[in-house]
């Protein structure tokens, strides 16, 4: 059997406005992208091939789903016009459909199904025509049934239109509550109603109230209360004393201290009320918190501590540097490219030499293990241009919109907090951990994080 999933841009236009950072078809429902629920159902119904039709762009979706080999099916894509009838859609995909039975799932709807039921038998035996429908679309079967009809009243199947933030919220909560018994949901958990991703750090005093679903790389800090009914995405930090209840927290979100998130959808710096539809963009670098920005006062002792520690490192690594650097340089294994990086002050750039060491030789491996590629940057700490530890320096041509909001989100350092925490050093993951430390670190914790970063780099390189 073949399945066609057909969407029109207009059906999910609201997602573009409310959650602009995600392709609507990848909108996470209980930490699983929307489209995967449909692909799962198509497979459950016995499809060997699935084609996604849309009158809008599918680029991000294609990058995520690729050719479907991850699910063991053939996944392909095609475009349609908004007013195409089912007949036209079948014509446009005649080669794909072949002579087989075709299930057409149209509309931006959440399908309620139960993975334990035998939809395969049903899909082949049901008479041609509509299988399920709702105001937002329908599931239709074409072609002659292979067998006589079974008692198909047993299999539950219904559609729920995802036409607003409110319905999205309801569908997410439903998926969370019915949980892994009906759908294939991500995460691991010893008990039902509790799903955790990889690298979830939970402080001792955290209280978890089922049901919850938590993504990858999540930090739940002291005295937080999670749940009941909390869906927390990946790369999320819930800071001290905050609670998240009956709420959805999207990927790459930082929830500050002492906050109570109840019945809300938090996405980046945006807080939404699914019931009233109200939405507010926090102008703080991360979701509103009680943190007072007193960086101007605190920065001086920090700069002094960083400079003193940098001086220490300069002294310790002077000998290895003076021996290895000329060797590598002569051997052509030491390459330095100069580029402009963004400095802590938003209006200035900072020219830095970025060193790339070709790690083929033993000396080079030692040099990298000792972080000698960063050695020259240490002098920038003395001049106050770089912190010893902070954010990974960003190239000046990159624009980061939140950068304009103040230095709280970005402080270029020789080492980055992401390296210290051994988190993926790029993208949203790193940004979120850097933000956390930029808001919470003090000069002393900085030093211990530098040591951690140093050890991480040492271990990483010796592993190679």
């Amino acid at each position, binding site marked *: 059997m073949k399945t066609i999933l057909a969407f029109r841009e207009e059906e999910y236009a609201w997602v573009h406005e409310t959650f602009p950072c995600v392709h609507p078809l990848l909108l996470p429902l209980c930490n699983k992208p929307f489209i995967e629920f449909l692909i799962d159902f198509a497979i459950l119904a016995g499809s060997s091939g699935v084609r996604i039709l849309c009158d809008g762009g599918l680029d991000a979706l294609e990058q995520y789903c690729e050719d479907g080999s991850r699910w063991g099916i053939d996944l392909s894509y095609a475009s349609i016009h908004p007013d195409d009838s089912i007949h036209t859609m079948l014509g446009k995909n005649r080669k794909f459909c072949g002579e087989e039975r075709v299930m057409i799932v149209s509309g931006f709807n959440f399908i309620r199904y139960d993975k334990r039921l035998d939809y395969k038998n049903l899909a082949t035996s049901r008479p041609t025509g509509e299988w399920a429908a709702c105001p937002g679309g329908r599931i239709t079967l074409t072609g002659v049934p292979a067998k006589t009809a079974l008692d198909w009243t047993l299999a539950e199947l219904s559609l729920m239109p995802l036409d607003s933030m409110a319905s999205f919220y309801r569908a997410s909560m439903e998926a969370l509550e019915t949980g892994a018994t009906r759908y294939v949901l991500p995460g691991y958990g010893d008990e039902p109603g509790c799903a955790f991703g990889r690298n979830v750090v939970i402080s001792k005093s955290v209280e978890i109230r089922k049901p919850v679903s938590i993504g990858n790389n999540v930090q739940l800090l002291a005295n937080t209360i999670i749940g009941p009914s909390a869906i927390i995405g990946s790369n999320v930090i819930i800071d001290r004393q905050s609670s998240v209840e009956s709420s959805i927290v999207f990927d790459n979100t930082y929830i500050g201290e002492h906050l109570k998130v109840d019945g809300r959808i938090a996405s980046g710096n945006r807080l939404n009320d699914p019931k009233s539809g109200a939405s507010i963009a926090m102008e703080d670098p991360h979701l509103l918190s009680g943190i007072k920005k007193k960086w101007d006062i605190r920065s001086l002792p920090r700069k002094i501590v960083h400079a003193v520690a940098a001086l220490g490192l300069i002294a310790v690594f002077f000998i290895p540097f003076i021996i290895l650097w000329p060797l590598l340089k002569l051997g052509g294994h030491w390459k330095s490219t100069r580029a402009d990086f963004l400095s802590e002050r938003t209006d200035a750039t900072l020219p830095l030499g970025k060193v790339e060491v070709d790690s083929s030789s033993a000396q080079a491996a030692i040099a990298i293990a000792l972080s000698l590629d960063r050695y020259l940057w240490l002098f920038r700490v003395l001049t106050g241009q770089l912190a010893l530890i902070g954010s990974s320096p960003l190239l000046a*041509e990159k624009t980061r919109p939140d950068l304009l909001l103040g230095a709280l989100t970005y402080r270029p350092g020789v080492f980055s907090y992401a390296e210290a925490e051994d988190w993926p050093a790029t993208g949203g993951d790193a940004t979120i951990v850097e933000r956390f430390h930029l808001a919470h670190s003090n000069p002393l914790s900085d030093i211990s994080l530098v040591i951690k970063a140093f050890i991480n780099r040492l271990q990483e390189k010796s592993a190679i």
Partner: protein
Amino acid sequence: MSMSSIITLTLPGERLFARVATQAATSVADLVTGNARHEPAGRDFSHAFELAVSEAFTNSVTHARENATAQVVKLTFLFEQRQLTVSVHDANDPFTIETPVPDIESFPENGFGLLIIRKVMDRVIYRRDGDSNILSMSKAL
């Protein structure tokens, strides 16, 4: 693989040579993707360079100054830090890469070139060096 030396290719500034330019681009892209060239990501990578070079070369040829003698288009390829950069040099009048996206509903015939380049590449930099234009296009592996 490491390929930090620069590959340079100089072609006559005529339409006919666009295929030579794009084939060079795909070959270099295939070279740096190595075994991944048969996987979807590897194929996309080399298709991106094929497209970008085709567009840039066509632009250079189309906007060539009339009567300019010995009009050539030079391509350089550099693979560094897992990022392939192709630069297209020509001696035409300066231009801008900040062109508006054409409105498809009005059936436009051109103006898509830079849009395509920006979409398929990670980074596009235009710079004027003396009398030449240099359009540098990079994409990470």
